[in-house]
């Protein structure tokens, strides 16, 4: 492991705060992807801090790559075939090292629907994520075609073809580590670059945006966030690249995500104990501190729709009366 000065990352981050996300060109179906360097050998392509929409081309994900003498390692491939192709072009404008591996950090659509454009490169993910991609890929395609229209043209899902094993390894002088965490989905892959202090946090960390929870398991997710928080407090991680929301230093995104998940859990538990129906929970006011977060209303509705039924059912006493069959 080469010990590079950590100040480097800080400088790029300061620049990053003022960087704007390039607007898409809908007429030409051009995502206008721009790779931005955030640390030595480390780039991100930032998506809009928003919900899926045609106006942003459904590009709401941060993808990235680590490029060294060992080659280029790509993280996540975006929501469509088109994104994958344009990601490839944006990458080739800034690095020359050939892409050796493409890794999808979890099973959600904008992490892997661009795999189609990377057919000639090994694509990999955690084993559980690969199973999920196969099972849900068709539904993702249908849903994103409905939401994003022409941006999805020609997109067909291609699950990752190889397994990623949690391990530490050298990548051209960068000490990288794959870690499997859980909670946002049942298999959340994160990449720690011990050389630069950059963490690609996948779906576990959201910043300035309401988390998505279609496959969430809240206790596991909270435990994973506390673990990441320790890495940051210990100085092992300096820069966090969330999949959704701005790249940042410190615990900003982790703390926001923890805040939302804990608040949501309490709200759902209290509401169920009071006997509220889901229709009523959907209409409760949301605290002021969340009001400026992106995708607030649609994600709140999705969060409640996904999770509340479990809280409701817990309120029922176990006693049940069996049916009397009398034909």
């Amino acid at each position, binding site marked *: 492991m080469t010990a590079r000065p950590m100040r480097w990352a800080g400088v790029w981050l300061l620049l990053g705060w003022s960087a704007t996300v390039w607007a898409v060109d809908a007429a030409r179906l051009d995502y206008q992807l721009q790779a931005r360097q955030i640390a030595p050998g480390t780039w991100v392509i930032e998506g809009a801090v928003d919900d899926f929409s045609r106006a942003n081309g459904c590009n709401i994900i941060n993808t990235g790559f680590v490029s060294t003498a060992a080659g280029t390692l790509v993280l996540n491939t975006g929501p469509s075939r088109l994104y994958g192709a344009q990601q490839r072009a944006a990458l080739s404008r800034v690095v020359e090292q050939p892409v050796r591996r493409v890794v999808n950090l979890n099973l959600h659509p904008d992490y892997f629907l661009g795999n189609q454009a990377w057919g000639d490169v090994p694509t990999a993910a955690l084993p559980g994520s690969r199973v999920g991609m196969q099972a849900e890929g068709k539904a993702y395609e249908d849903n994103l075609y409905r939401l994003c229209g022409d941006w999805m043209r020609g997109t067909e899902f291609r699950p990752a073809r190889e397994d990623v094993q949690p391990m530490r390894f050298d990548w051209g002088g960068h000490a990288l580590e794959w870690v499997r965490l859980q909670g946002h989905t049942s298999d959340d892959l994160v990449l720690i670059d011990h050389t630069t202090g950059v963490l690609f946090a996948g779906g576990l960390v959201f910043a300035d945006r309401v988390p998505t929870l279609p496959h969430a398991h809240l206790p596991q997710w909270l435990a994973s966030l506390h673990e990441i928080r320790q890495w940051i407090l210990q100085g092992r991680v300096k820069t966090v690249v969330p999949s959704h929301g701005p790249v940042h230093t410190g615990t900003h995104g982790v703390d926001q995500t923890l805040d939302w998940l804990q608040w949501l859990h309490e709200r759902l538990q209290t509401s169920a104990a009071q006997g509220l129906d889901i229709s009523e929970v959907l209409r409760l006011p949301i605290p002021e501190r969340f009001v400026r977060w992106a995708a607030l209303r649609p994600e709140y509705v999705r969060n409640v729709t*996904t999770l509340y039924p479990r809280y*409701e059912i817990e309120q029922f*006493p176990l006693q*049940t009366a069996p*049916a009397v069959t009398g*034909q």
Partner: protein
Amino acid sequence: MHTDWTRRQVLAGLGALAAAPAWAQSADPTGGDPLGSMQWPVLQKKHIGAAPWQFSDGIAVKGPEFAEDAMNVPIFVDARALARSAGPIALIRLVADRNPIQHILDFEPLACWPVLAFRFRMEQGSPVRALVRTRDGRWYVGQTWVNAAGGGCTVPGLTRADGSWSRTLGQVQGRVFRNVIEGGTRLRLRVMHPMDTGLVAGIPAFHLEQLVLRDARDQTLWRLNLHEPVSENPLLTLELGDTVHGPWQLTGRDNNGNRIDAQVSA
């Protein structure tokens, strides 16, 4: 009666006077529907017929703007304001214009508040309406629009897909909550049933048809006639009122003759 409709007709007439194109002279094809649905005149004719009716703000029909789960679209109906202005309510009928099976359920609040929450399956975005008949035979209509990606009616439910429905069929869970709505006694009920719509290939319609709740004095508080679109393992929320006499007896049957008979205590 027909207030909105009449206003539109007048507007159409004025348009015609001002040398409007020919189409403006024909009757409004949505029958004055505030949601602009072409199905409304047919629904109105089928369910209300020649009886007097009007759209009413006294009926709150609340659904999500977008149905994130097309198999479980939550609807909350509250006709207490209408009951205060127009008198006791005999029937609340829920329909969705664009569902392959439009008629969702009939709710008779015989001795309870005219409030009901339930979930149903949507095949596509649609108006969801409460057609409410007061005891004097007049109809009042409230509605909301719910968008949906769809497919809810033609996909098998979870317990049908994994085969677990047969172990829980007809089980009833219930719990009473006080003062969710000021002064009210809320009953939440879950009845385990696959509620097969009959629209999934190879799975015939198999659903609860009727549920009736009686209190400890054998007074019938409400009656529900459920149709195919009601979600699997229906979770129903009812308001029993401010003077209640539990425990309650829930009875009912499905379309295969299986009976429901369960006691619910506070």
